[in-house]
């Protein structure tokens, strides 16, 4: 099913709700992300960021609401929708007995990437793990595992990318490269959603911000729009101050 009215929007979320038993993790959340935009998902612990990302990446089913990825309804045509997206969890979870190269080969088979060897080389070079291509995950550092997980996600050239705390475990150089990689992919036309507690990352990388608290949207817009909404006319208010004002400075 295609959403003719929202053709420009790569990610279109409408009324997303997720319950875990009696607990509501996300309530009636709506937002959209267009090609080239990077949306930063922020909120205190337990705000529903990871649940939102998992729902819109098709990992867990929402309790209510509609999600469209690249014009495909995630519930009605999940295969077409998922073909366009990649999800990067906060912790790299890899198969213990597949080497770096074999991880990419496996992902290529799952996504039907025909010439994966031609694509895998530059990706491994980009993430500086080419010399580890024949190593098992047990021989990789935490940062290298993270890089491998990202390389696997990018292999099928997704147009929609979801990052959950993308900088966890990376060294300063890795952080810089990751930020550049996100910006580059957005410049190439990808729609990106990332969740992070690192507000300076959001300021550097994101074009838009969505603030969540207890599963509900507090604010949504470009960084200047959000700043204007919460700065109360004060000049030079940074995103950290905005976040504290928006969320009331506590989890509850």
């Amino acid at each position, binding site marked *: 099913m295609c959403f003719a009215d929202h053709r420009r929007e790569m990610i279109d979320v409408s009324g997303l709700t997720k319950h875990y038993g009696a607990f509501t993790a996300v309530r009636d959340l709506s937002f959209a992300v267009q090609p080239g935009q990077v949306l930063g998902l922020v909120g205190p612990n337990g705000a529903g960021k990871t649940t939102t990302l*998992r729902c819109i990446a098709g990992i867990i089913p929402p309790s209510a609401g509609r999600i469209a990825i690249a014009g495909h309804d995630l519930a009605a045509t999940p295969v077409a929708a998922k073909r366009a997206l990649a999800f990067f969890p906060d912790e790299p*979870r890899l198969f213990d007995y*597949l080497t770096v190269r074999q991880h990419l080969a496996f992902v290529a088979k799952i996504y039907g990437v025909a010439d994966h060897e031609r694509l895998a080389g530059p990706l491994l070079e980009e993430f500086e793990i080419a010399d580890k291509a024949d190593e098992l995950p047990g021989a990789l550092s935490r940062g290298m595992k993270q890089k491998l997980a990202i390389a696997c996600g990018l292999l099928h050239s997704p147009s929609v990318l979801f990052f959950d705390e993308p900088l966890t475990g990376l060294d300063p150089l890795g952080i810089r490269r990751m930020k550049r990689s996100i910006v580059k992919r957005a410049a190439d036309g990808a729609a990106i959603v990332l969740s992070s507690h690192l507000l300076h990352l959001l300021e550097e990388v994101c074009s838009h911000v969505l603030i969540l608290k207890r599963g509900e949207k507090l604010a949504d817009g470009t960084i200047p729009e959000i700043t204007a909404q919460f700065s109360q006319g004060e000049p030079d208010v940074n995103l950290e101050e905005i976040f504290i004002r928006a969320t009331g400075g506590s989890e509850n």
Partner: protein
Amino acid sequence: MVRAILYLRLTSLKNFLLSRLRRLRQPKYLTGAIVGLAYFYFFFFRHVQHLGERPGAASVSPFLPPDAGASIAAVGSIALFLVFLLMWGAPSTKPGLNFSEAEIAFLFPAPLTRRGLVHYKVLSAQFTALLQSLLYALLFNSRRLFSGDAGFVIVAWWALLAIVTLHYQGSSLTLARLVERGARPGRRRAAIFALLAGVLVATGYSFWHGLQKLPASADLGDYFSRWIPGVVNEGPLRWLFWPFRLLVQPFLVHDAAAFALALAPVAGLLVLHYFWVVRMNTAFEDASIAHAQRQADRVAELRRTGVLRLGEARRHARRAPFDLARVRGPELAFLWKNLLSTARPWFTLRNWGAVALLLIATAAGFHALLGPAYWKAGGVLAAGGALAGAMALLYGPLLTRLDLRHDLANADILKTYPLPGWRILLGELLAPIVVLTGIAWLGLLAWFLGLQGHQPPALSPKWFGPEMRIVFGLCAAVVTPVVIAMELLIPNAVPLLFPSWFQTLRTPGGGIDLMGQRLIFGFGQVLVVVLALLPAAAAAALLVFVTQWLIGPALSVVFATIAVALVLLAELWCGLWWLGRRFEKLDLSSEPRP
């Protein structure tokens, strides 16, 4: 999809085997592999002499009578019934398909439908079932595995394991759907319990009814071995056990035609199960993620503490075993902490006292009730007490991990404490000493109470008369904690003397080399404990032998006990001091991962 699964499974298997072979370059793995292979040869391959020959149609095992097949089939059917019942009764409030964290990370966001994921799980499980069938055939049917029946045995095991796995997946998805529709787990469990209770009542009645008809001279064992197949094959329960009898049948036949005939209904069940599982369109993702997280936590905990937690992680604080503010000595802080970490909350002084009072009350009650015939009940109490005490003394130190080994993951913090190594080690040993001594003392009490007022004819009145029993009981009570401490000191020396081997031993997962290493350490531990106890035992025997003529058996035993305690305490002190020094110098750099 099938190609991707095959690629994942076969490549993983190849890499797994290669990594296991590569690590044999390290002497510790090679030694372990040699010992493990020797163990396997001794237990499974030694009896294999006539490769390719079919064993006789009637034979089940060289260790069992030829007509044991019917009983084994019946027991197998009952076991399968219980396993299937457990699948419906045990699952938590969130049942779902079990995926690993890597599978969730790679496959859940991949362009696959939910049914595709279920297919992945079903096909992957068949791959695992095939490998398991080889292992089980080796463990349970090694004689037939190395005969012309090898194909029958492997296929029979695969079909059985495939159905068990599919049924588990089907029941999980069905239960997930029921939960989705608001069904309560309590009601489900009550229904399963009612079914089990019904079966138990029916079988109990059948057993009693058959027993009534039995002539007084009949052999009870013979009746029992005929009664079990009767329960499964005849009477009202035969319909309940019918599908399980079908599953067991392929194991009992020996020619191709009979095997094909036995396998046909199993294949039918397999197909039905397959359609049941893949046709269920139930949301399992949330439960699968939660399950994978729990599994990952358990593995991390196993790596950290060396203890595999079976249930959920504890969420609520426990009442402290004693008031820490009122005791002196940092060792007691370790005792306090480790008692709080025990898996069971009932290791408290109050509970020990309650059990002791219960034992005394029970013995007194039986005395009042039975009078001179008290020994009938007392004998059972004494035997049970002796068994519990012996188990605590012999196996307790082998089984417990509530000491330094449990805390080794925190060794970097322990080393920052302003305490000499021996005090830390002593503190870490106190909790298992207290717990095991408590069990052993209760066992002693039960033994003593059970034998009250009775002199078993097999025991010498001079050495085991009522007064001597008091002496023995008190002396054993005195020496028990010292012996337990010595038994615990040896395994706690392993991580300090062989840290690299120790880290390998607690690696999750198996392997013939790891099994061999565990055998080496198990045997070594027992040997060292025996050697450590030998001087004390020799001193005690000599003292008793020499002094009993002069001062009588009671005093000679007291003197011997003092000697045993002194020798063991001296050994303990030396061991603690030496291992404490080793702990202070312990290099915390970790063993590279295999």
